[in-house]
């Protein structure tokens, strides 16, 4: 036991002292945030190219009423036919021609001509604008008095806040978006952690093997002690890094919360009521419905952050984090012991990485449907459960499901560690031989 602690110590200290560890600790949260936010940001990024669209309106309803944006402009060339515009399209400077037929009210069809496929933003904008205009036209046909005023006053934007209460009557604000975010974030974290630190175990084993120091070490300690010492040592490095990340993030969030939303001490109901009073006052003066929805959403997220069951989530996260890591680290240790250098690891990597990648795909489905059967089964299979179960936990799955998934994971990693120990002790002493799966099977069955 004393020796395994020495090994853990060495594995831990040599890694924590590296410069790369410090850099990752600082950059990790930034990179991770970037990884989570960037795809969404890219998806919503606005096209900054100004597009002018020529409108050929056979109905004369839409003349200069289509709303323009910063990047979408409409031009209404008079006295030119569609045919002329089409013929001169190349030199006209228009990016598209919108043709509105005179029977649009009956056919519900309008046509956008262009030489290139127009972007989603453009087509959606035009579709919405025309729909709205036609709806207004249809309303006007009913000859309602003060129509403009009525239309203005019925504009509404409902903010749905769901508040759940526990048995002791305490109110909690729940937020599906937040649950999704936490699930997605922790699933991704586990995925990265397994890859990052699992492969460190593998590289560590290969290093010892190629340095040939392994023969000296196993003449002092049992191969299993060496392997477990390495797995635990590297795991602790990962946990240290993780804890540092959390601390950095908490400090950051805490700072933001204090500065931006000092009034979070109110209960959610109090907040809603105070808003209702404000809103009714606004209605009396027939002012705009409550505007500026963005700080509202942020405030809500921070409010519900305080009510998410962080103890449970953090506890389960640590469990699946460690369980998943131990399971995969034993596979990575097997790979490391079976090869002589990193280039040879390719053939063994696929079966290890494939379940992880599948887990990520299932995770995306699970976020939308956390109680579905796909989510259920993949949160039971130990190779994918650390990622998939973690995504389900913020949605409060049944306790027995969590317990079963955890039990299966524990049993599997005990089994895989035992198996890894057997293959490892033979593998680390085999040099210059490229192992095959058949060989690994033989090593597994060696008595000693």
């Amino acid at each position, binding site marked *: 036991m004393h020796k395994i602690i020495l090994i853990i110590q060495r594995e831990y200290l040599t890694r924590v002292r590296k410069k790369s560890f410090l850099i990752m600790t600082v950059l990790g949260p930034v990179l991770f945030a970037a990884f989570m936010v960037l795809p969404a940001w890219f998806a919503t990024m606005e096209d900054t190219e100004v597009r002018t669209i020529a409108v050929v309106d056979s109905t004369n309803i839409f003349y200069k009423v289509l709303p323009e944006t910063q990047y979408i402009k409409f031009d209404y060339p008079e006295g030119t036919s569609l045919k002329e515009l089409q013929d001169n399209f190349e030199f006209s400077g228009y990016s598209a021609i919108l043709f509105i037929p005179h029977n649009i009210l009956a056919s519900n069809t309008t046509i956008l001509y262009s030489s290139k496929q127009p972007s989603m933003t453009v087509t959606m904008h035009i579709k919405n604008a025309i729909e709205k205009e036609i709806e207004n036209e249809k309303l006007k046909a009913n000859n309602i008095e003060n129509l403009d005023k009525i239309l203005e006053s019925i504009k509404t934007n409902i903010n749905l806040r769901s508040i759940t209460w526990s048995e002791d009557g305490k109110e909690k604000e729940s937020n599906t978006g937040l649950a999704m975010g936490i699930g997605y974030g922790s699933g991704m974290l586990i995925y990265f952690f397994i890859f990052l630190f699992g492969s460190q175990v593998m590289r560590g084993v290969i290093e010892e093997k190629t340095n040939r120091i392994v023969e000296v070490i196993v003449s002092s300690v049992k191969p299993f002690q060496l392997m477990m010492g390495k797995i635990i040592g590297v795991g602790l490095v990962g946990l240290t890094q993780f804890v540092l990340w959390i601390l950095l993030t908490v400090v950051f969030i805490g700072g933001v919360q204090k500065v931006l939303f000092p009034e979070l001490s109110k209960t959610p109901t109090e907040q809603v009521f105070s808003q209702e009073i404000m809103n009714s006052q606004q209605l009396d003066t027939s002012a705009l419905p409550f505007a500026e929805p963005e700080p509202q959403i942020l405030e809500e997220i921070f409010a519900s952050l305080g009510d998410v069951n962080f103890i449970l989530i953090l506890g389960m996260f640590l469990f699946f984090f460690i369980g998943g890591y131990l399971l995969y680290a034993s596979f990575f240790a097997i790979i490391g012991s079976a090869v002589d250098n990193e280039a040879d690891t390719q053939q063994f990597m696929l079966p290890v990485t494939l379940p992880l990648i599948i887990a990520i795909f299932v995770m995306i489905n699970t976020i939308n449907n956390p109680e579905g059967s796909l989510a259920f089964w993949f949160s039971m299979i130990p190779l994918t459960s650390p990622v998939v179960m973690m995504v389900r936990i913020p949605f409060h799955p049944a306790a027995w499901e969590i317990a079963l998934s955890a039990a299966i994971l524990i049993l599997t990693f005990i089994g895989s560690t035992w198996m890894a120990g057997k293959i490892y002790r033979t593998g680390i*002493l085999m040099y210059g031989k490229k192992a095959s799966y058949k060989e690994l099977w033989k090593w597994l069955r060696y*008595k000693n």
Partner: protein
Amino acid sequence: MDLFQAKNVVKEFSNHLALNKVSISVPENTIFGLLGPNGAGKTTLIRIINQITAPDSGELFYEGRKMTSNDTHSIGYLPEERGLYKKMKVGEQALYLAQLKGMSKHDALKKLKYWFEKFEMTEWWNKKVEELSKGMQQKVQFVTTILHEPKLLIFDEPFSGFDPINANLLKNEILELKRKGSTIIFSTHNMSSVEELCDHISLINKSEVILEGQIYDIKKNYRTNVYELSYLGNPEKLQSGLGASYEVLTNISENHVNFASIKTQTEDADNRLLKELIPLVNIVSFNELIPSMNDVFIRVVEETNKKNSKA
């Protein structure tokens, strides 16, 4: 008394028998040569002694009792393929390896100080291993092998990679360790160092022990009863003067001195032969042609290989 004994050790790998009922006895406070051609099973046997692998069958004894895994604390092992953590600092690494052998940090530091000073390595302490030359790394590894003052030392090709000066330093250190009471198992292909250092040997070929015993006895057993003689006088007189129980194999003359090699039919015939020679020629030198360990090695291995191929 034997410090280490292996009895009928069998070890089989998936498709070949690495050790077939191998028994060796290593007497205390001797240097024991473990010899054999490549692939004979020496490394497997060394790994079994180190408890790195376990035999399929057979028994191991240490200090007369059954060997346990705790006995590895009193074994020091220098493998043929040397290796240290390249990125780790020399001092830290030496301390780590010593602690893995069960030494306390305090003791280890004290001993390390002694050896680092003795081998003039003190300034390497905070260097990374990869910054040292190969010879320097070998020295570090040697120190880590003997630091915990093991009763049994196993050196696998210890001289490879050392320059003649350091090899000599190492040889003296090995002899010094023996003088202080250590027992040493010494595996090498360098037969001249075997003759120089070893007291006992075991020769393994094709997974079996084919020759064992004290070097002195082995050489005696393999002697060919041939004597070398240089003399002044008439070569023909020598040829004709010796009786029928002696056979003159060669008889040449060079720079006024004659050289002859004479085979006797019986053992220990040196005095009788001398008696016969004295009246015939003027003797300059006379000695028995003793086979070197190199000759013995080649002869025994080839003989058993022939026997095996016939069978």
